[in-house]
Each structure stands twice: as C-alpha cells, then as structure tokens.
C-alpha cells in the first residue's frame, strides 16, 4: 500500500475511496512529520474527535437487518439487530490531511485514546492545528501535550465538564407546559 513506509503505522485501511492510517498516540508526531515531509501533505484540514461511549449497545448503534445483512430493496424487513464491531477505545482523533498539488491527495490519520489519555500536539508540524486541538480538549476532554496554550476555546475558561461527550447533559432550563416535565 502507498503508506507502508510511515513510521508508527498500525493499520492502513481504505473505504469509500478514503485512506485511513491508524497510528499509535506515541508515534503520532513522527508519523505526521513523515507524511508532511516525505509524502507532501502540507495542509492539515481538520482534527475531528469522536466519542464512542456505548458503541455496540442496542439503541446506540447498529441497525435491524437479516443475518445476511439488510435488504434495501425490501424496506422495513425485520430480523436481527446487526451490531457493529466494537471500537478499540473510547475516543478517536482523526487528522484530515491534504496535499496541495495536482491530484490533491487526502489521507486521514487516526489515533485511538482512552478517557484522560493525552495526545501529543502537532502544532509544531502544522500551526493550523492550534484551535482544532483546543476544541478537542474543550469539547471532548482530550488532554494535549506540548501545546503552547491549552485553554478552552468555545466555552468559558472556568467551565466544568466537556460538553460534546456522550454522557454530558444537554442543559438549558425546563420549559413550562412543554410536556417534558
């Protein structure tokens, strides 16, 4: 495969025309530096954090289908609930990279993290990662190592909790006569 020479690579998968490289958190900086210098991915487009709490439990993920899979040509077919494969850890952090050259190659670098497990910062490689990583810390509680100012970005500085986690309540005030009380 095209990315087998990336240091720290765990797996490389390709689906729907997109290439995903799974990297260990410890080897993230080395892998990203290699991708930027050798493969020419000079732009970090996005860092997306995902919380997979409750993945695989009924009602959270999966779909109703037959043992062979769901038949889209027969709508509303009943059957077994097909649950997806469990994820390795709770959080995944996806770095979307773009090579600005003819062909515009894109690749996704994926890191899997537990709750509270820190991730090394890639600000030294792509300065644009600054706010994305701060958002990952603010919204998902993924601690950053080596970030110049790891403060909250969207919420107040003294806010407690990480709002986009699955176990964070929606908040707000109860509304009278709305039927929810």
């Amino acid at each position, binding site marked *: 495969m095209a990315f087998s020479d990336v240091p720290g690579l765990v797996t490389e998968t390709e689906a729907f025309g997109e290439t995903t490289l799974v990297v260990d958190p410890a080897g993230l900086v080395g892998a990203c530096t290699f991708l930027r210098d050798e493969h020419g991915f000079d732009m970090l487009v996005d860092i997306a954090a995902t919380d997979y709490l409750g993945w695989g439990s009924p009602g959270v993920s999966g779909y109703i289908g037959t043992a062979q899979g769901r038949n889209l040509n027969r709508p509303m077919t009943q059957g077994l609930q097909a649950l997806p494969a469990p994820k390795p850890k709770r959080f995944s952090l996806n770095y979307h990279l773009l090579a600005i050259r003819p062909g515009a190659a894109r690749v996704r670098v994926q890191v899997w993290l537990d709750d509270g497990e820190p991730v090394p910062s890639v600000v030294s490689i792509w300065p644009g990662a600054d706010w994305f990583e701060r958002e990952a810390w603010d919204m998902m509680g993924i601690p950053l190592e080596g970030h110049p100012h790891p403060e909250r970005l969207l919420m*107040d500085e003294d806010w407690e909790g990480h709002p986009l986690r699955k176990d964070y309540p929606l908040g*707000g005030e109860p509304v009278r006569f709305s039927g929810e009380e």
Partner: protein
Amino acid sequence: MAVDRPKSPRLADHGLQSERVLWPDKGPSEFEQELGDIESQLGLTTLQKAVAWSQTKSMWPDTFGLACCAIEMMSIVSSRYDIARFGMEAFRSSPRQADLLIISGRVAQKMAAPIKQIYDQMLEPKWVIAMGACASSGGMFNNYAVLQSVDKILPVDIYVPGCPPRPEGLMEGIIRLHERVHAGVPAAYEVGGVAK
C-alpha cells in the same frame, strides 16, 4: 407638581400616535391605557417632559449585532424601513456614546461577560431592548451553551418577540420604548434597582 394636563388615559390625547401609524381608526389599547395611567400618576414637570421628549427624539443605539437578528437590525437602517425618521440612524460604535443597547441575537455563555462590560460602559440614561426570541428567553437554543435570556445579566426595557422579528416589529418595539420614555416611565435599571 401642580401642572394642569388632560386626565384621560389615552395616548392619542397626549399627541402620541404609535398605535395608529398603520391603523388610524384603532380604539384605545391596553398599552395606551397603562401608559396614560402612569403618566397621570407620575405628574412630571414641564422640564422633565421636555427632557424626556428630547431623549426620545435622538436615542442612538449601539452597534451590537450578535447573530441573525442583527441582519434585521441592519435593515431598519436601510431606506425601506428607515429608522432615520426617528433620529436613530446614528448607530454609535462606542458604548460610551450610545443610549440604547439592542441585544440582537443569541447570547453565548462566553459572551455574557463582554455584554455586561459594554452595558456598564454606557452612560445613564440607558435602555435595553431584547430583540428576538434568543435574547428574550434563550429562543430555540435551550442548552448549556446559550444564556437563557439576556435579562439574567441586564435589566431589559422592551422584549421584541420574533425569530427574527421583522424590521417593522423591531421598530414597533423601539417606538413603544420612545413612548414609555416620553410618558416618564423610568428606565429598567431604575425600576429593578440593578446594574446601575
């Protein structure tokens, strides 16, 4: 305050016509009744009435557009709705030169402190209009990120409903504020005793 003035409760008798700009034959409304009662009870002197009249005729808003409602607030300065008819096209960028703070848009939790700072920088007398659903009550955003109504941090004079309110709706709110001020109703911070 022994000044002679008509005893009737109708604003129309005092020369105030906001309810009848589009509907000249409309009967007296509750708003007018209440204002008329307040006016007759407050018993302002002629000088106070003159001062209130002049505050009404040139109440400069602060440029404080937060979100979607700001677009409607911008459009009242445009030629079709033209707030310049009421002396208010001079939106001041500095709160120290502004009389009116129109909170137009949802207030994030992070924005609450700057809003309070801006309001404190305004000089008395000052008025606040909560424009739209989000400033009045949090609007459709009933969650952790949006402050559920700006009156948790500021004293509000007029709430204008809508999402967003049409420019005519905001102008109705502004004109009602003018009539309140003209009638001698004190600004919200004096009534509530907060944010002085």
